[in-house]
Every structure is written in structure tokens, then in C-alpha cells.
């Protein structure tokens, strides 16, 4: 019922509960942090790319507006495109002394306001110089934008339609080979990779989205932002800013890192709070209850456990209910133990009484052998082996006078105390009747009358009564529904057939009995025993002894057991039969009392 646990192991289990909760929380928290990071990474990506788009758009639009501020831009774009080879432009950019010179020398305040008409009125040399100055101004503007906004690449170009682009202006990262492309320089441009750019060329409309393309030169991913320069609705140049994705990702990673740290800190605090809650609200009260239970286990004092758990039991939660239940269970258990104790005591008393009854019963049968040491005319032996503590079988033998020996074997209906009581009555009745009457059948009639009186429980007894005249060997016997006796005569065993059935004693009222058929009446049978002859009588416990397959020992079994031993003593004979029966039934429980009596006439 109770499993005994050492103190150490219980302690271990208590700690392991805390560890399990801790591990569970850790798993939940960690997965939550990871999930949060992933979500945040995505959100941040969306925000950052949006921002990059807005920023980029502002820059390219700013550049476009600057270009548009040249009144003669359409003429310039055409001139630049057509004279890209003949224009006299220093390569070195702003730092080039020639560049500065020509820039300074010209009255640039007027440059933007010169109209196309005015330009067309210029001489060819003037036109060339105008175009050169404007180009250098714009190129330096691109360089400035690149520096001021710290962009990776800002350009104005036109797709050639052959997989290359024509550069008007292109200021690139100074870490790359050159800071700027020269006018008309072309570079590979796969329009198929640039979905947004291709839309711009197709529709002539500005597109708002970022375009992500992996560069064919350095394998890096870039985001592209575009703006367009149009002349009379025609796209004549596309302004583009490129942003390395790695820059974007760096920003995102930084943001995610910050969030992750914040998340972790938050979770560590929650973790500590939750574990403390678990400990103080669950584990500590449980340990208290456990201690209470253990205490009860050792001292069986329900009062002590009640006192110990009193404070816990007041709590209005599951722990409180548990504490209350445990206390109640202890009280219940005490009551139950008391009950068991009294029931056990009662059982013990009944058991003791049964033992006493059994010993009285077996004591009431003649059980000292040799029973008549002073008589050498006969030898007698008997066995009674009850199936329960007390049985309904009995045997009896006694001298009614010097020359007459009465033999009784009987079987009372049923078993246990009722059968034993009826057996005692029957035995006494037969004994007293046999002392006054000589004929077995008369004794049976008289016994039947007595046993039928006040037979409230409808008990009856089958009985065989024989009276041996010792001097002559004449055996007279009568039978009240009992088994056939076995006789050893002329060196062989046989069962003696009945003259009449004979009614079991107590079965039918004397009046009723007399009216019945002849075969139910009691009759005396007389046989003559020769010296060396044996008579053996028994109860149905012998013939009906069964093995596990319900096969019965039977009369045949009995006869063959008897026939093995001849010329022996009654004691040896009966012990042998008993052994044979034991061998036959093997491990099957004994259902019925087994009683045997044997007499050797000498």
C-alpha cells in the first residue's frame, strides 16, 4: 500500500520539479525570443527598405530637379549624347586643375538661364563650350551628392538597347577603380534583370518601388531607386541610386540585436518571477503536505497531520483543498484501521473458536490407537479428515457389552459448524440407543424418530451401523442411505450389495417412513467374519474425491487401492488408501470430508 521512499530520493524529486518547470520556461522563452527576432527582422526589413526607398527617391528626385533647372537641358542631353567623343572634358573631376579653371572662368550664374533658342544662336565653339561647362557643373553636382548623401552610386544614364548603358553622369564609390565614369562610357546592363528599369523604359513613367538586383560584377545584392528625365514625354535619361543590401542588413541586424537583448532581459525577469511563484505557491506547500503525509506514515497520528496542515488547509485554492483532503483521508484511515482492527479481532475470535470446535469434535471421536489394547480378537483403525475446520463426517466404535462392538460411519448433510452440531447429536443418539438395543435396524428407526424431532434446519445424516459379536464373528449391520461397505473375505475385497436403500436419518418422519416402499426401510444384514477377514466402511468423500478434471476416485478406485494390500493391519490399510486418494486428486482442493474405518477380525 505504501511505497517506502528514502528521504534523499524524495528531496531529489522535489528539486527536479523546479528544474522541469525551469526547463520548460527556458524552452518557451527561448523559442519566443527566436520567434520575436524573426518577426522583428521581417518588420524591420520592411520598414528599412521603405525608408531606403523614400530616402533614395528623395535623392534621385533632388538630382533630377537640379538637372531640370537648366533651361536648355533637352538641347544639352542631345548634345552630350551626340558629342560624347568630341567634348573636351578633363577626366580628373573637381580636383583636376583644368576642371576648376574652366568652371571658375565661366559665369555660371547665367548658365542655367540660357534658353535653347539662345544656345542655338551660339557659334559652334560657343555651343561646345556651353555644353562642356554645363556638363562639368552637373558632373560635379553628382560628385557632391554622392559625397554629401554618402551614397554608393548615383548616375544618370540611358539604356542603349544592346545590353549596355550610356553614361551621362555616374559617380561611384571611391573605393572602386574610378570615382566617376566619363561621358558616354558604357557598361553592361542586362535589362531583363532590372524589372523596374525596364518598366520605366517601356512606359515612360516613374516607378515607386525599390528594385533588388544581384550585381554581375561583385555578386553583391543592391537596391535600385530610379527617377526619370523626360523631354516632351520621352525618357531621355534615367537617374539611379544604388544601395548595397549589406548596408540595409547591417542596420536590420543592429536593430534585431537590440531587441533580442531587451527580450532576453525581460524574459530573465519573468523567468525568475515565475519560478519563485512556482516555488512558493506550489512546491513549498507540496513539500509541507508531503512532510505531513510522511509524518502520518510513521506515527499514524491524524491529529498531528491535521495540526501541521491547518494553515495550508485554510487557503482557498487547490493546495488548500489538497491539504484538507489529505487531513480528512488521514482521519478516515484512522477510522478504517480501527474498524479493520475490530473486524480482525472478531475474525480471530471466530477462528479460535473454530479451532476449539474442531479439536472438541476430533476429540469426541475415539482417536487413540490401538483403541482396545486388552482385546486381541480384533484390531480397529479409523481416519477422519475434514475438508473444513470442522466437518459433518464421523466414525465411532464402542463396546456395548463385553461381546459386542458397535461400528458407525456417518455423513451429515452440509459442512461446517451446522453439520458438526448435527453430527454431535447423531453420534450421541446412536451411542445411547446402541447401549440398549441390539438390532441395528431398530436403532436406526429409533434414531430417525429422534433426529426428525425439531429438525428446524432439515438436516439429515447417512449412516452405517454394524454390531459385531466378537465371540462368533457375526456382524449385523444396517444402513441409512450410506455407502456400501467393503469386505475382505477369502483373500479378496468386494463391496457388499445393499438389501435395501434405507432412508437417511432425519429425512422422513417415522410415520411417513413406515408408509414408504420396502426398499427405503432399514434392514439388518448378517454376515459371518472368519479370522483374517476385514470390513472397511467409508463416506462419499472417498469415492467422490476428484482430480482437476473432475474424475472421481470411485468405488473402482477404492477397490483397487484396497486390493493392493492384503493380510495387513487396518491402520496400514487405511493409510494406504489415503495415500492413493492423495495421489489421485493431486493438487485439487479437498471438497468433502474423508472418513474411513476398518476392522480386522482375528
Amino acid at each position: 500500500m505504501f511505497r517506502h521512499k528514502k528521504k534523499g530520493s524524495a528531496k531529489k524529486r522535489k528539486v527536479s520539479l523546479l528544474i522541469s518547470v525551469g526547463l520548460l520556461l527556458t524552452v518557451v522563452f527561448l523559442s519566443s525570443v527566436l520567434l520575436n527576432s524573426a518577426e522583428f527582422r521581417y518588420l524591420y526589413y520592411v520598414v528599412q527598405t521603405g525608408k531606403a526607398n523614400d530616402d533614395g527617391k528623395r535623392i534621385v528626385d533632388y538630382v533630377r530637379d537640379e538637372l531640370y533647372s537648366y533651361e536648355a537641358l533637352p538641347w544639352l542631353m542631345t548634345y552630350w549624347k551626340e558629342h560624347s567623343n568630341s567634348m573636351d572634358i578633363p577626366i580628373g573631376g573637381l580636383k583636376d586643375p583644368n576642371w576648376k579653371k574652366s568652371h571658375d572662368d565661366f559665369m555660371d550664374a547665367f548658365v542655367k538661364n540660357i534658353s535653347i533658342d539662345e544656345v542655338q544662336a551660339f557659334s559652334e565653339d560657343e555651343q561646345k563650350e556651353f555644353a562642356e561647362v554645363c556638363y562639368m557643373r552637373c558632373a560635379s553636382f553628382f560628385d557632391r551628392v554622392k559625397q554629401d548623401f554618402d551614397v554608393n552610386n548615383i548616375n544618370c544614364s540611358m539604356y542603349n538597347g544592346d545590353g549596355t548603358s550610356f553614361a551621362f553622369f555616374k559617380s561611384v564609390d571611391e573605393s572602386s577603380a574610378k570615382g566617376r565614369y566619363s561621358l558616354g562610357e558604357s557598361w553592361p546592363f542586362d535589362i531583363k534583370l532590372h524589372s523596374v528599369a525596364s518598366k520605366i523604359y517601356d512606359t515612360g513613367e516613374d516607378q515607386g518601388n525599390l528594385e533588388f538586383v544581384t550585381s554581375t560584377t561583385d555578386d553583391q545584392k543592391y537596391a535600385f531607386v530610379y527617377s526619370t528625365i523626360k523631354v516632351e514625354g520621352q525618357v531621355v535619361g534615367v537617374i539611379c541610386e544604388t544601395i548595397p543590401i549589406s548596408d540595409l542588413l547591417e542596420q536590420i541586424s543592429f536593430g534585431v540585436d537590440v531587441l533580442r537583448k531587451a527580450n532576453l532581459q525581460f524574459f530573465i525577469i519573468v523567468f525568475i518571477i515565475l519560478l519563485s511563484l512556482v516555488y512558493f505557491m506550489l512546491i513549498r506547500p507540496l513539500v509541507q503536505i508531503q512532510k505531513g503525509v510522511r509524518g502520518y506514515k510513521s506515527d499514524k497520528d491524524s491529529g498531528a497531520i491535521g495540526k501541521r496542515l491547518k494553515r495550508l488547509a485554510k487557503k482557498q485554492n487547490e493546495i488548500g483543498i489538497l491539504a484538507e483532503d489529505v487531513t480528512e483521508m488521514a482521519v478516515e484511515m484512522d477510522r478504517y484501521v480501527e474498524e479493520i482492527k475490530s473486524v480482525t479481532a472478531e475474525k480471530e475470535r471466530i477462528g479460535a473458536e473454530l479451532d476449539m470446535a474442531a479439536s472438541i469434535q476430533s476429540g469426541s471421536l475415539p482417536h487413540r490407537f490401538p483403541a482396545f489394547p486388552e482385546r486381541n480378537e480384533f484390531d480397529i483403525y479409523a481416519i477422519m479428515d475434514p475438508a473444513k475446520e470442522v466437518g459433518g463426517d464421523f466414525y465411532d466404535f464402542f463396546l456395548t457389552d463385553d461381546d459386542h462392538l458397535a461400528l458407525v460411519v456417518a455423513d451429515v448433510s452440509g459442512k461446517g459448524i451446522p453439520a458438526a452440531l448435527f453430527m454431535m447429536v447423531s453420534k450421541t443418539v446412536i451411542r445411547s440407543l446402541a447401549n440398549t438395543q441390539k438390532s441395528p435396524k431398530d436403532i436406526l428407526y429409533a434414531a430417525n424418530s429422534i433426529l426428525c424431532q425439531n429438525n428446524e434446519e432439515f438436516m439429515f445424516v447417512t449412516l452405517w451401523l454394524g454390531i459385531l459379536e466378537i465371540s462368533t464373528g457375526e456382524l449385523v449391520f444396517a444402513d441409512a442411505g450410506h455407502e456400501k461397505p467393503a469386505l475382505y473375505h477369502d483373500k479378496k475385497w468386494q463391496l457388499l450389495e445393499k438389501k435395501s436403500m434405507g432412508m437417511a436419518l432425519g429425512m422422513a418422519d417415522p410415520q411417513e417412513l413406515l408408509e414408504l416402499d420396502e426398499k427405503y426401510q432399514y434392514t439388518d444384514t448378517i454376515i459371518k467374519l472368519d479370522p483374517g477377514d476385514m470390513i472397511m466402511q467409508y463416506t462419499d468423500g472417498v469415492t467422490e474425491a476428484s482430480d482437476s478434471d473432475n474424475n472421481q476416485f470411485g468405488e473402482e478406485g477404492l477397490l483397487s487401492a484396497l486390493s493392493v494390500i492384503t493380510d495387513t493391519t487396518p491402520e496400514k490399510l487405511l493409510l494406504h488408501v489415503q495415500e492413493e486418494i492423495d495421489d489421485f486428486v493431486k493438487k485439487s482442493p479437498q471438497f468433502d470430508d474423508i472418513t474411513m474405518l476398518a476392522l480386522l477380525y482375528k
Partner: protein
Amino acid sequence: MLNITTSSEDNAVIIFLEGRLDVNAAVEADRTFTEVLSQTDSVVLDLQKLEYVASAGLRAIKKLRFNLKEKGGSLLVRNATAEVMNIFEMTGIAAILKFV
């Protein structure tokens, strides 16, 4: 193992005993007999499937027969097998039972 079933036929209650009416089964049989006694004066015991009857079982039958007689009723026994009949004859209870 004893299996007891009852059924009604005309005014009589028929009790079917099946299996072994040993000392333990006798208690149950006795209980059934007492129940049936409160319902009818006319009882038929059908012993077609009764394999064995111990003395305690005979006692229960004897008690049933006595109680019915007291009430002025009747007990009939039918279909007893040779083995059971042998036990009835042996103890003499056959003499006080009516067979059909």
C-alpha cells in the same frame, strides 16, 4: 458452478438447475427456493442438466419440499439424470419426492 433459472408454466414455477449443486451452490439454491416459495405453491424442479448433487443440496430440496407441504402446495421433480437419481435413491430422498 450452478446455474439457476426459473420460468412460469400455468400456476407452477419451474426451477431449472444446471451444473453442480455442491455445498457452496446449495446456499444460492436455498435462497432461490425461498424466493420462489413466496410466489407459488406449486414448484417443479427440472434437473435435466444437473450433473451432481451434494448432501447440502439434498438438504435444500428437502427444505423446499417441507415448506411447500406446510403451505399445502406440491413439489414435482422431473428429468433427473441417472447419476442424480442414484444419489436420490441412495439417501432415500427419492422416496419422499414426487417424480414426473
